């Protein structure tokens, strides 16, 4: 018996052949004009666009008002990654729930882990709260590599800018001098702003912040403040009644000014309840660029958060 492929079979084989051979012809081959940077959070994009200037285009996958732990892995993000020259991610497993699949789906070898276009920004900065013992999820949703919310410390902002400049210079050596110039200008801006903000916070050194999640520790350390506790029982675990009772006792027994803060994307009910119970000021902080309408850039985020915290601490009962 000789085999005669049926009509559907023939159609399938022809489709496959066209798809395989025609692909390179259909792929755009426009000369690369700009370095395409894709970031997981808008703050990294803001830093990259300040360092890269007009030589880069940036796109952030997550929004500033969105919880960066739980971004939807939209297929359109895979499309953005497909065209990316540089991926900047926070790292420390902040994006573990959504980014790896997008990376595989992007089919872009330039941005896979280990490639030049893959910049894990946690390797550029100082990491806090690195677990000293083996962790388990009974301790909450902890990050084994340390606390990933490091961009809220301006010192780390400078380090991020430096690392971004280095990586851009590697990817696009022809414009190294421009990147360096931009980076210097931007880093000095951060340093000057940080000094001004530190002076604003100086009268409140040693006072307490009670954040909703553990994402404030970098800001707290930099600002010379202290964290009394978190509203969450454990990272990622809603506060229980018992935890809130404990928190009430702790607040009542601790002297010093205290304020309650939460990121814009966390529910404010519990935080507000604690704040009203003890007549503590409650503020929402922009965790990222775009977290609040006034937080339009990384520098604005720093400025905005510091101003809010300083104003709230000034209002807090001594």
């Amino acid at each position, binding site marked *: 018996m000789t*085999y005669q492929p*049926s009509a559907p*079979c023939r159609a*399938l084989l022809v489709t496959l052949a066209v*798809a*395989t051979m025609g*692909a*390179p012809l259909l792929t755009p081959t426009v000369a690369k004009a700009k370095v395409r940077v894709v970031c997981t959070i808008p703050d990294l994009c803001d830093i990259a666009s300040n360092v890269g200037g007009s030589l880069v285009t940036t796109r952030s996958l997550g*929004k500033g*008002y*969105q919880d960066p732990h739980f971004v*939807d*892995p939209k*297929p*359109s993000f*895979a*499309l953005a990654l*497909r065209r990316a020259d540089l991926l900047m991610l926070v790292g420390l*497993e902040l994006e*573990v729930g959504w*980014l790896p*699949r997008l990376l595989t789906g992007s*089919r*872009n*070898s*330039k941005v*896979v*882990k280990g490639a030049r276009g893959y910049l894990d920004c*946690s390797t*550029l900065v100082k*990491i806090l709260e*690195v*677990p000293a*013992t*083996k962790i388990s999820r009974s301790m909450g949703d902890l990050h084994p*590599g*340390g606390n990933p919310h490091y961009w809220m410390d301006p*010192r780390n902002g*400078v380090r991020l800018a*430096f690392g971004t400049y280095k990586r851009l210079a590697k990817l696009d050596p022809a414009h190294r001098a421009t990147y360096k110039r931009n980076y210097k200008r931007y880093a*000095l801006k951060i*340093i*000057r702003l940080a*000094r001004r903000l530190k*002076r604003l916070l*100086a*009268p409140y050194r*040693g006072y307490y912040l009670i954040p909703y999640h*553990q994402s404030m520790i970098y800001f707290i350390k*930099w600002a010379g403040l202290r964290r*009394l506790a*978190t509203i969450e029982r454990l*990272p*990622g*675990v809603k506060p229980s009644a018992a935890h809130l009772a404990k928190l009430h006792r*702790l607040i009542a*027994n*601790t002297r010093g*000014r205290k304020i309650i803060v939460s990121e814009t*994307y966390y529910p404010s009910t519990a935080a507000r309840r604690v704040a009203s119970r003890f007549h503590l000021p409650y503020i929402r902080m922009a965790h990222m660029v775009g977290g609040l309408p006034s937080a339009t850039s990384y520098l604005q985020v720093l400025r905005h958060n510091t101003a809010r915290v300083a104003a709230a601490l000034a209002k807090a009962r001594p």
Partner: protein
Amino acid sequence: MTHQVHRLTVPLWLVATVALAGDNHTALAQTAGSPAAARAAHPRRPPAAARVAHPRRPPAQVRPQKRQPKRNSPTPPPQPPAKAAPPAPTRGAAPRAARPGSGESAEVSDEELLRQIEKEADDSSSKVPKTQPSSTGGRVLRFIQSLNPDISAIGCFAGAYYYDHQLEGKGNIVPQGGHDPGKTGLHLQEIELALQSAVDPYFRMDVFLSISPHGLHIEEGYFTTLGLPAGLQLRLGQMFARFGRFNQAHLHTWSFADSMVPVTRLLGGEGLGGLAGEVSWMMPLPWYAVLSLALMSPTAGGSFLGEGDRAESFHIRHPGHLAYVLHLAQFFELSANTGLSFGLSYGLGPNNSGGYDLNMTHLLGADIYLKIRNLRRPYSDIQLTVEGYGRLTQVPQDLLFDWGLYALASFRLSKRWWLALRYDMVQIGDSSALLAFGFAEESPNPELPLPVDDQHRGSVAVTFAFTHFSQIRLQYNNNWTRRLDDHAQPGAFRLSHEVILQLQGNIGTHGAHPY
């Protein structure tokens, strides 16, 4: 070695940190030697109880930000709530910084500070692994840093109760998917063991083993290429075919505790999956569009050769004896809050009715999925899915057509609560003909073995998530089924009520799920 490196790098780093932090650290350095002085300088120091009885002190030990000079006090004195007015340096003036080792302070300009940070970054990148923490943390990082793949286990346990008053306690007659709790009682639906990692810069491998009372089987296990040019990607191994949305989803991602009727009855008890090689192409279009073609073993799924004796004795003699699955997936980001995906699927493969004469089964599928999620309110979303399936079965002197669909609406009500509604159905064209060629499904109930025919089902499920990693689900099915009578004619529809309670838990690092 590590300590030597630390000694080299820390002073520079300390300079930078201290300088940026301003006079805060100078004060610390000045009071460091004398606890009494520290107390005097900290009139508002909180009571000891506040420092010790810290309910939310994270189990993670905070990595020391800087190396302190040796002191008598075991804990560093907290920063004073600065009674004295802070020095008010003029704009741009250099703050005071501690000079490491000497305890003196020095003026550091902005540029100098920047140079120090750069030098420190360069040093750390060339000498020590980045994010090298203190020695304690280092031990843990070394523990984490291994070449093991991401390993996770997800357990799904269920208790089910079926009630059909006409059966007088003889159980249910409803055919079930591979993981469904098929009768009244307790069930281990599955423990899924997932191993996922990059193989090398060219491939990654994902293995999903399913462990249940029926034994261990490979649910999926495939290689994926990472960097083929022109938007191409290959997958090779055991996999669920890209045929619609639900067929690719694993049990723990479902909104219900059981499978969809049309998938179970038209594609196979565990969907359409098997050994395959698949090429997919991300088309160079302004929107996301991926076209894929899989060449599969003809034993894949339940509508082709299946897994019986017939399949075992079947030998592939030419390409027409393979099964083919073609799929087009498209996604449109209508806004930041709204995404719409749309898919078309086609499957082709030999069936059981024709020996080597190539009687073929054609599978058709279309799916649409809409997700509305207000990103400013992360704990609420709406997901709507509709999938339709058709099956054309070529048998001697006839072509049989069966079809089915499901419509699913899932609502996230709050951080922990979900509500899901579902309607799914299957319409069998000619059950008696399917029965004659061995395609019709038998009832799972040995006392009522006659094959089932059409089926309609309405379901509601409420899910409560304790955390992101565990959840409990209560589900009710209102299931209308009819079976063939003794004369192989469809009988009347009969209703059965089903209640399922399911518990799910996840340990380890599990890969991300698709949109």
